């Protein structure tokens, strides 16, 4: 019971007081939900006609094929490319050669600090607009690859550094070359540590595909507009599309938890600082 840092195990008086708090907060929460439903009802948003497209097979197919499938494809391609990008730059950041390390550092820091949407707009104007060679689908993929790849580069670097020192030292001691140490000793062990972080990055990538809305890319956010323009059902559409995103993300998070349990066990989740090589000494160790 006393698993919390904040409180001692409650005595009988406190338990009684907490019971009152519970009743009050249940009443408040129920009132909030009831008000939200009443507001929807009052505005006529619970009418069957407004929800009809979401039980009509043609529209379900439209949402799933033109929306969800495109979104998943964008997320899939960008995460695959991002893993490659992250692997290359993550290893390059650990290089012994300054002329490899510093450019890699610059690229990674640049793409981590720039908003994804700015990157998307730029790739859109550079490669897609007019009669550019690519569609906006691929502009989203490129922008997400650059951003998520840079984040993953940092994940890879942290993962490789998380492999115990003795492993690399032992490998050097038996006469392995630098590339051998990396590919046959460090990376196989690091991948195990990094897999959950990579999967949670997939959640980020999936959420960010929605930004393609601004550069007219396909996807779930793009199918929403024609539906609510035709039926005038802005609120139901937003609820349904958000629901799909949340459901897919929860599935991904669930997979990440399983992988974490299977491969890493109870050890701490890999901690990756957002910017820079964590200037603070003991802060990340806390």
């Amino acid at each position, binding site marked *: 019971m006393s*698993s*919390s*840092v*904040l*409180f001692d195990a*409650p005595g009988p008086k*406190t338990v009684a007081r*907490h019971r009152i*708090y*519970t009743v009050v*907060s*249940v009443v408040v*929460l129920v009132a909030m939900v009831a008000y939200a439903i009443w*507001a*929807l009802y009052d*505005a006529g*948003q619970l009418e069957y006609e407004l929800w009809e497209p979401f039980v009509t097979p043609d529209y379900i197919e439209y949402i799933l094929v033109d929306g969800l499938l495109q979104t998943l494809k964008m997320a899939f391609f960008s995460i695959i490319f991002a893993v490659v990008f992250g692997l290359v730059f993550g290893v390059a950041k650990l290089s012994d050669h300054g002329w490899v390390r510093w450019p890699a550092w610059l690229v990674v820091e*640049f793409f981590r*600090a*720039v*908003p*994804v*949407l*700015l990157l998307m*707009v*730029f790739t859109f*104007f*550079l490669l897609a*607009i007019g009669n550019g060679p690519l569609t906006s689908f691929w502009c989203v993929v490129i922008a997400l690859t650059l951003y998520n790849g840079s984040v993953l580069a940092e994940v890879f670097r942290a993962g490789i550094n998380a492999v115990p020192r003795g492993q690399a030292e032992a490998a050097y001691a038996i006469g392995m070359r630098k590339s051998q140490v990396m590919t046959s000793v460090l990376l196989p062990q690091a991948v195990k540590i990094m897999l959950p972080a990579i999967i949670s990055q997939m*959640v980020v990538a999936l*959420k*960010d595909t*929605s*930004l393609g*809305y*601004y550069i007219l890319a396909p996807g779930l*956010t793009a199918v*929403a507009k024609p539906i*609510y323009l035709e039926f005038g059902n*802005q*609120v139901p*559409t*937003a609820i349904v*599309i*958000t629901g799909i*995103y*949340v459901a897919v*993300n*929860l599935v991904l*998070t669930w997979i990440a938890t399983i992988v974490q349990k299977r491969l890493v066990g109870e050890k701490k989740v890999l901690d990756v*600082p*957002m*910017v*820079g090589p*964590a*200037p*603070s000494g*003991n*802060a990340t160790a*806390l």
Partner: protein
Amino acid sequence: MDAVFSNFDEYLKAFGLTIGLFVVSGIASLVLGTILAVLRVGPVSILNKAASLYVTLFRNTPLLMIFVFIFIAMPVLGYNFKVVENIEIAGYNVSAFFFRACLALTLYTSAFVCEAMRSGVNAVPLGQAEAGRAIGLTFSQSMTLVILPQATRAVIPPMTSVMIALAKNTSVAAAFGLAEATATMRGFTNDNADERIGIFLFFAIGYIVVVEVISLSSYLVERKVRVAR
């Protein structure tokens, strides 16, 4: 380059709006996130569940969909937040667009702030609180003297990440008619397509400066509160 230099005041105005969005929604989401974190770690289990539901829901929703809710769905329900346009602060009228963008950013970011706060509290070893109680400190004493000082230190790095993400997320407001940096960059590029690379780099540098200022100030704060152990 001419495109940026000849419209430099617009460039500054755009980043002014970006920073305005960041500061207002940053403070608001710190407040809301702290309230959520208190509910999340507090003793009432139903409030724990409600706060954790909020966090799960908003963390897994794309920010763009929250903007869609606020900008497209809410007006249908009669909430267009036009009332804020009557409020005047230091001679400026608050625009409903600005208010709505801040609302969306706050709802989204507060979920992450709550998680950062919670991880900070969880980083304090259980023995610290037990030792505090053992020597007879009251609840408020053990909070202010033992737990919160340690939790604050642990909270700074994840909170910095959240704030940096918020600064970058203000760009989503571009898709909903706010002339902040990303929208202005798009406008500039539209008018001067041959200078698009230079324009992009200029705006990217603007964002990098904002991000670096945030991480530098967090570094300074962290150095200030650090203790030897």
